[in-house]
């Protein structure tokens, strides 16, 4: 995509090997170097006590303000339950044609649905969600191709059905947009 790098900023006390594997896979899909760094914000500022969830809109804005100037694209990675005012929850969100996106693994793990933990599945889902949000920052909208990473996913089953890569149409659009 670009010689500049993508940064994944970690806000969730993730194991370093977990972050490094995400960075490696995302780098392969995006054809761009990916760096990982720790981030520091006070999440209690974004907690909505009536919903017992964290406001995704406000967090995205904050991450964009602090980190967007540091790299080509930035993804904030969390482990809290995110919402936006109109939706009961979100896996992640990003500024369309912007710099920044956020992803939370909170609803991506099997344990959340009373299924045996599977770290590989969690990793795959997280990679897909990170690439999806990066796609939005690069101007891609939702795609109807079943296997494309830009297909809209509201349940983890949707995430499991799609692939981690872009379909040929989205790839062509990306080439048009970023060369």
């Amino acid at each position: 995509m670009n010689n500049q790098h993508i940064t994944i900023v970690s806000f969730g006390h993730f194991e370093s090997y977990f972050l490094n594997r995400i960075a490696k896979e995302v780098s392969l899909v995006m054809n761009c170097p990916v760096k990982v760094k720790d981030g520091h914000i006070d999440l209690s500022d974004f907690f909505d006590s009536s919903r017992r969830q964290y406001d995704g809109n406000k967090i995205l804005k904050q991450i964009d303000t602090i980190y967007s100037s540091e790299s080509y694209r930035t993804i904030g990675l969390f482990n809290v339950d995110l919402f936006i005012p109109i939706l009961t929850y979100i896996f992640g969100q990003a500024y369309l044609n912007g710099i920044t996106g956020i992803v939370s693994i909170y609803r991506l793990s099997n344990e959340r649905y009373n299924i045996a933990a599977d770290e590989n599945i969690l990793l795959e889902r997280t990679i897909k969600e990170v690439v999806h949000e990066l796609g939005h920052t690069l101007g891609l909208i939702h795609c109807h191709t079943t296997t494309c990473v830009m297909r809209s996913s509201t349940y983890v089953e949707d995430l499991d059905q799609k692939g981690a890569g872009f379909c040929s149409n989205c790839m062509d659009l990306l080439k048009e947009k970023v060369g």
Partner: protein
Amino acid sequence: MTKKISILVVDDEESVRDSLYNWFVEDGYRVECADSAKMALSILESECFDIVLADIKMPGMDGLEMLKRIKALEKDIIVIVMTAFATVDTAVQALKDGAFDYVTKPFDPDDLSHLVRNASKQISLVGENEALKQKVATLESVEDLIGKSEAMQSVLRQVESVAQSNSSVIITGESGTGKELIARAIHANSPRKFFPLVSVHCGALTESLLESELFGHEKGAFTGALYNRKGRFEMADSGTIFLDEIATISSKMQVELLRVLETKSFIRVGGNKEIKSDFRVICATNKDLKSMVETGTFREDLFYRLNVVNIHVPPLRERAGDIPILVDYFIKKYCNSMNKPLVTIDPSALKRLEEFKFPGNIRELENMIERAIVIGNGKRIYLRDLPIESSLIDSSIESLDENEKNHIVLILNKYSWNISRAAKALNIDRVTLYNKIKKYDLKRSEK
């Protein structure tokens, strides 16, 4: 070719507007936001949206009141109401007032996508239904284009070749020759066939009505403008507009029409927003537009803009050879529509029809056959069933020579100027016929 669905989000909370905006933009919709009912109504007055997603509880005018006003303004718009305070009563009231659906905030992400997808499906189904109705009407009427005569075959060849282009067409011909059918045939064979063919009979409307009909109007633009209304140019987007009796439009409308044809954009009566529309224009007239240009009653620039291709539809008397198949076609058409068994036509009645001049052209022939089927005995159409007995002889012509000349022209045209066949039908020899042609200075029509 599918159009991007447009959504207007109305909510007093900025975070809700932003969230919905981002969500729908990522889904590929065109989205705009309003922070109040008042602002939404003002946007809707100048811009069209497919879906309005509105909060019920807003300061000032609430969502239910806004829903009523939107429906009064634009009946077909889909309104989905949402609220954080759901009660059965408000839901029922919203649906009674014309809301498409009702949702409670916050929604499950999947519910929101489904809701808008259903609304989009409804919009495309309504659009498809309209387009299909148009197409069926177009195809049904195109079947009426019948004729084996050389004159008609030449017209059909022109239709075929011009259909694929995007050029403006003027169809000329006497009243009742089927000019609108030619327009329908061009549209039905063109790449625009999946989109509407919108017909406007310019001669039937006054200048102000025609203006509102063509360009549409905003609510309150004039007395009786109770709703915003799309004009014919807007309705013909991606399709074809057929302007019948184009010669009757006023000089003011000629200027307006020229501007629209050049820019493919216009403003609704009483509105201020420029609307773009991609249409092809086909016009028809029974007048000689060129001489109207010479006398200054029709704008020369408009004439040349419209007259890229000219198709002349011959009068029925110049293709009398087509009468038997047209009669056969109309018999089948009306017997079927009246649920009657197929009737036949008596040879002497058919012969009279072939000799008749039909000043009203095919329309007159069609009406005659329809009438004969209604009043006839249900088995056979006789001469007495046709209203031509007394009108066959033109009483204004007293000279025997004049009558002879007219009859020879009729027979020559009937047999496409085949001298042997025409002479045989006239029961004279070929030399006599040649002499008569010379005597009356008869010439084969070019058309």
